[in-house]
């Protein structure tokens, strides 16, 4: 793969986002319209107890991703009510155009006591062309933990092919501690599920991407098909000390597959890495690949998990 970096294309600190969400633009994910590209991203705001809420917004761009056309006037979806799985955040949100429908697969966050958070995957649909999304049913998750996937189910990326919904997502099978006096650290890796209706999913509790180290965490899979192969980008990091230590923070990983089920990891072929001295010098994370007018683009976050926005790259050749 060879990618041409287009640089950072959106910085949330240069704009007034809706509803007091003032920082971060994490996990950019695209929905292509006839004349523009809508990029959903998750912004954060601080709450009374010093913790953050995360919620999807969007920015509309010209189709070359160079010119920003406008911003959402409200969050694209509301957070869940008291006790709901998405009470304390929705991050990320994967949007899927399916005929004349626009569906969303959300990752809801709720805070815990012994560990920091729990996550689950929710389902929503837009009835106003992708501006706002309504949650399905009473707003509970479509993918909570299961007997083999006990925690941190999230980061859904969904495609619809061959009359089947395919989902790549993550779950955690343990919480880790670097040492007894430190807070537990979350752990997750990439898995696969499929569904006939987008609501009821078959999954088997197996991780599908070979890790490079024992406690490697993997997140945000994104899949596209070109040149007779399926390609997956994702991000990976060390389980510990990944927030401040450049050597342990997120990088982009890559895998390919002939059948969409068995994946061969080949990070060396990713064709994109951090750039010294740039906005993505220390970290590259939350990738999202989409096709627009025959070209493939990669959206991703750079340093500090997208605190200062997201950037893009254009696929030059395979």
């Amino acid at each position: 793969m060879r990618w041409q970096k287009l640089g950072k294309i959106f910085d949330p600190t240069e704009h007034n986002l809706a509803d007091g969400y003032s920082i971060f633009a994490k996990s950019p994910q695209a929905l292509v319209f006839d004349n523009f590209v809508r990029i959903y991203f998750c912004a954060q705001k601080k709450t009374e107890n010093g913790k953050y809420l995360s919620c999807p917004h969007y920015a509309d761009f010209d189709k070359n991703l160079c010119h920003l056309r406008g911003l959402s006037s409200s969050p694209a979806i509301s957070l869940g009510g008291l006790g709901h799985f998405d009470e304390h955040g929705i991050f990320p949100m994967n949007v899927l155009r399916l005929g004349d429908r626009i569906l969303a697969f959300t990752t809801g966050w709720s805070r815990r006591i012994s560990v920091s958070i729990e996550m689950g995957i929710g389902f929503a649909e837009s009835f106003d062309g992708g501006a706002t999304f309504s949650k399905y049913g009473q707003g509970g998750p479509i993918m909570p933990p299961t007997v083999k996937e006990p925690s941190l189910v999230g980061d859904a990326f969904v495609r619809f092919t061959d009359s089947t919904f395919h989902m790549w997502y993550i779950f955690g099978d343990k919480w880790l501690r670097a040492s007894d006096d430190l807070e537990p650290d979350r752990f997750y890796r990439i898995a696969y599920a499929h569904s006939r209706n987008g609501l009821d999913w078959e999954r088997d509790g197996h991780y599908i991407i070979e890790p490079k180290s024992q406690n490697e965490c993997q997140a945000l899979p994104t899949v596209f098909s070109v040149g007779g192969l399926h390609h997956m980008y994702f991000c990976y990091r060390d389980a510990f000390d990944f927030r401040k230590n450049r050597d342990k923070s997120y990088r982009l990983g890559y895998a390919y597959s002939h059948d969409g089920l068995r994946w061969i990891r080949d990070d060396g072929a990713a064709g994109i890495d951090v750039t010294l001295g740039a906005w993505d010098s220390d970290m590259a994370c939350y990738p999202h690949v989409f096709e627009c007018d025959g070209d493939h683009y990669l959206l991703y976050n750079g340093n500090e998990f997208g605190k200062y926005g997201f950037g893009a790259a254009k696929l030059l050749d395979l």
Partner: protein
Amino acid sequence: MIWEKHGVIFDPATISDRPSWMHGYAQAPNSIVFDDFVRVYFCCRPLPDARKQFVSYCAYVDLDRKDLRRIVGLAQEPILPLGALGTFDEFGTYPVSFARDGNDIIAIYGGWSRCESVPFNISLGYARSTDGGVTFEKLGPGPVLSHSPNEPFVVTSPKIRKFDGKWILAYTAGRKWFYDEKGVPEIIYKLRMAVSDDGIVWSRLDKDLIPDRIGEDEAQACPDILFANEKYHMFFCYRHGLDFRKNPARSYRVGYASSLDLVNWKRDDAQVELDVTPGSWDAEMIAYPNVLELDGRTYMFYGGNGNGKSGFGLAELRGGLPL
């Protein structure tokens, strides 16, 4: 149905040399009948931690089959361990329901995790005993029935039964959390059902089993179903949404519904003549019923004051179940 009370049967606090994990409470009794005794599982607690938080373990007491007021055995260890860090059952296994499956006994149990904005969340786990119900092994680290679009949180109070070759799980699911006048979160939950071929993969009915009788903030729990006289009988408990902890008139009572098909239920609480006894161990509430037919009689185990804080007791039905 007139129920005659036999009084409190078991309260851990009456045992001087009890283990620390069984310091108090005997909540949510559920029975399994053996040749010579009836094993009644209950959920108990050690003393609370420094933050006044409890955990809950499941144990059992064996009662003489010929005289259910006579204790003939007591669990030496919890039947299930608590879950690992961050898992759904890290802080409690309560309530726990049991059914025989060939030579084994299976359990469906509520696993408790602690949350920041509300005190807890609950999903249902699965475990199996191959030693006659003394110890159980969990199927895995996660739940078999967790939350769903229309059951967004707190899936608990399970009752596992097998009817016509199908596993039937009646349970309760959270409808809403809301704040009381002091800003403390309280929860409303409604009776729900799921069916399964293997007890592990469940298909939800996705509807409330019974209508509310005391308003939409009625909380319903513990739907215990048995089949007799060619129909299904369900005993459950219900309470008001607020002011139910200290006000006996608003606390748990036992309700009743009947059905021919397990799906459509006719609620008729007036059938149950069983109320609190002022001044007694069950002066506040009749909670978490378990009904069984045994040797030609029909019994109900239930929790009293503090939802089992004063132990569980026994009532006996005069005559049989309704035709």
